[in-house]
């Protein structure tokens, strides 16, 4: 187990190192001149060469690329993550301020997805091809296809009409006012949770059906166990592993999707910071936020793999 753990974490570190280099390269090399990226073509053309050099030096962009990269690693090491071009605060401060909201949304959506997806999947697998199964499958196909941000827009619209809903303007943290905080995160959490739940229902249904066909389930039935007990006690634990994996993979979908869903609900989370940084072409903020998303995604998948090894000894010892 320990060897497996070390190897898995090592691989993740190597991957993240590669991720940091690629995002750095995307941000510096592809646009050619970063000043054009920041100021736009016209703004760039209007400046004198001396102005350009001064700004580049101010922003720390005139150093050779390897030096810039090492500086960035140093910034990450110091926990500050570098400064935004347009705002006074460091990226770390932005993350500390906006991150909790987005984290809450992600966790809430995870909870919703399991609470909705798993029972629906079990129900479907209990009576395959019954009417409830058909309804459940139709709904999951539908919720996989509906873009989350659009569903969010519709919910906001409906609440505008019927409840006089207002989009949140300021961040209310969980520890400041739990009730108002919940009002901010609940919409995005449910929307993202339903989409994930659809995948989880689908996956748990097909995995359960597969397991139900195996010999040990027949044995359990043969010795006269009730059907409910057979499914919940014997079949379900064996069907859960792939569902856990897909839940980890889906996190990538949530991290990306939350950017658009936060925009739809007007929630001032990390996704909004990402969108405004991209629009303002604030490359320091973008490169740090992209790295943060990748780090979270990779770490969660390491956790999923480890839980897999913990739940299934066959993986642990191979």
């Amino acid at each position: 187990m320990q060897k497996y753990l070390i190897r898995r974490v090592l691989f993740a570190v190597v991957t993240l190192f590669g991720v940091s280099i690629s995002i750095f390269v995307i941000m510096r090399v592809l646009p050619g001149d970063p000043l054009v990226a920041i100021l736009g073509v016209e703004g760039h053309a209007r400046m004198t060469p001396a102005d350009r050099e001064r700004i580049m030096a101010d922003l720390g962009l005139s150093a050779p690329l390897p030096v810039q990269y090492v500086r960035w690693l140093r910034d990450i090491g110091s926990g500050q993550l570098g400064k935004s071009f347009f705002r006074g605060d460091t990226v770390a401060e932005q993350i500390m301020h906006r991150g909790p909201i987005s984290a809450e949304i992600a966790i809430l959506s995870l909870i919703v997805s399991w609470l909705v997806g798993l029972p629906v999947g079990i129900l479907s697998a209990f009576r395959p091809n019954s009417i409830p199964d058909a309804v459940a499958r139709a709904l999951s196909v539908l919720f996989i296809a509906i873009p989350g941000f659009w569903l969010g827009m519709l919910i906001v619209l409906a609440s505008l009409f019927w409840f006089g809903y207002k989009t949140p303007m300021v961040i209310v943290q969980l520890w400041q006012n739990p009730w108002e905080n919940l009002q901010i995160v609940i919409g995005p959490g449910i929307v993202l949770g339903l989409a994930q739940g659809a995948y989880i229902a689908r996956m748990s249904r097909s995995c359960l059906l597969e397991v139900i066909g195996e010999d040990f389930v027949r044995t359990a039935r043969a010795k006269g166990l009730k059907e409910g007990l057979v499914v919940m006690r014997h079949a379900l634990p064996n069907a859960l592993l792939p569902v856990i994996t897909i839940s980890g993979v889906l996190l990538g979908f949530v991290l990306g999707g939350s950017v658009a869903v936060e925009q739809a609900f007007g929630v001032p989370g990390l996704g909004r910071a990402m969108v405004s940084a991209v629009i303002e072409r604030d490359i320091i903020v973008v490169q740090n936020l992209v790295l943060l998303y990748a780090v979270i995604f990779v770490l969660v998948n390491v956790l999923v793999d480890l839980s897999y090894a913990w739940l299934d000894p066959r993986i642990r010892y191979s």
Partner: protein
Amino acid sequence: MGAVVTELVRFSRRNTLSAIGGFVGLLIIFVALAAPFLAPRDPLKADFRRMNKPPDAQSLLGTDQVGRDTLSRVIYGTRTSLFVAFSAVLLGTTVGSLWGVACGYLRGRFDLVSQRIMEILQAFPDLILAMAISMAIGTGLPAVIFAIAITRIPFGGRVIRSVALSIRELPYVEAGRASGGSTLRIMALHVLPQCIAPYLVLATTHLGVAIVIEAALGFLGVGVPPPTPTWGNMLADSITGLVPPWWLALFPGVAITVTVLAFNLLGDGIRDTLDPRLSPAFLRMMAGGRRT
């Protein structure tokens, strides 16, 4: 030709839903191609006498803030969205798949290095990577296509690689090697054809994903720049007002959902046909048939 029709009829009988998906997909492609003939008005022409009108006889789906016809914009949006999605998949999924064939067949150091690259690409959430790339290379149509294509590469690389890995061990491939075929020849003539079926499944599913990413990019204001009508741009336009008009928010989203649904259903059907292990019928058989 006759054989193709028989095959299609058999497919539709077994997978009614995906046949419907395929039919709707074809219809949507037709709408995209015939947009100039189907759209009642010019999608870019503003009409200040008819701003923010709800659906009526003159404009069936209403008009937007500057009086452009929503129906025409949805129809032309089909064009942009499908063009972006098809190009991105044709580029990204294809490059990824060819790369996967090479990885699976060649193995060794090339495979090892390629797999690390795929892992790095997969470490980014799709939309985040697409946003970063389209920001870096500018927000035009080609940039958006390129950005979405990059996010599709690792999936092709992973899935097709595993297919190629199992095929390279088959006797007929070995026979090809024994009779002195060059590596490239064996890959192209013996391994590649076997990868076409999984490629089709992958590509169809990726079409749906690409459409959603494109719409999300447009919605966030980093996609194909306005005034080009895309579904995402229209959704972004719709929420600029204090009270968004419902028809502007509703119809482009319906278009996205229907399109994605159609391609997903089609993809499911193709998968069930080509890989029966995953089909419901097989799972039912596994389940012993007692609960049907």
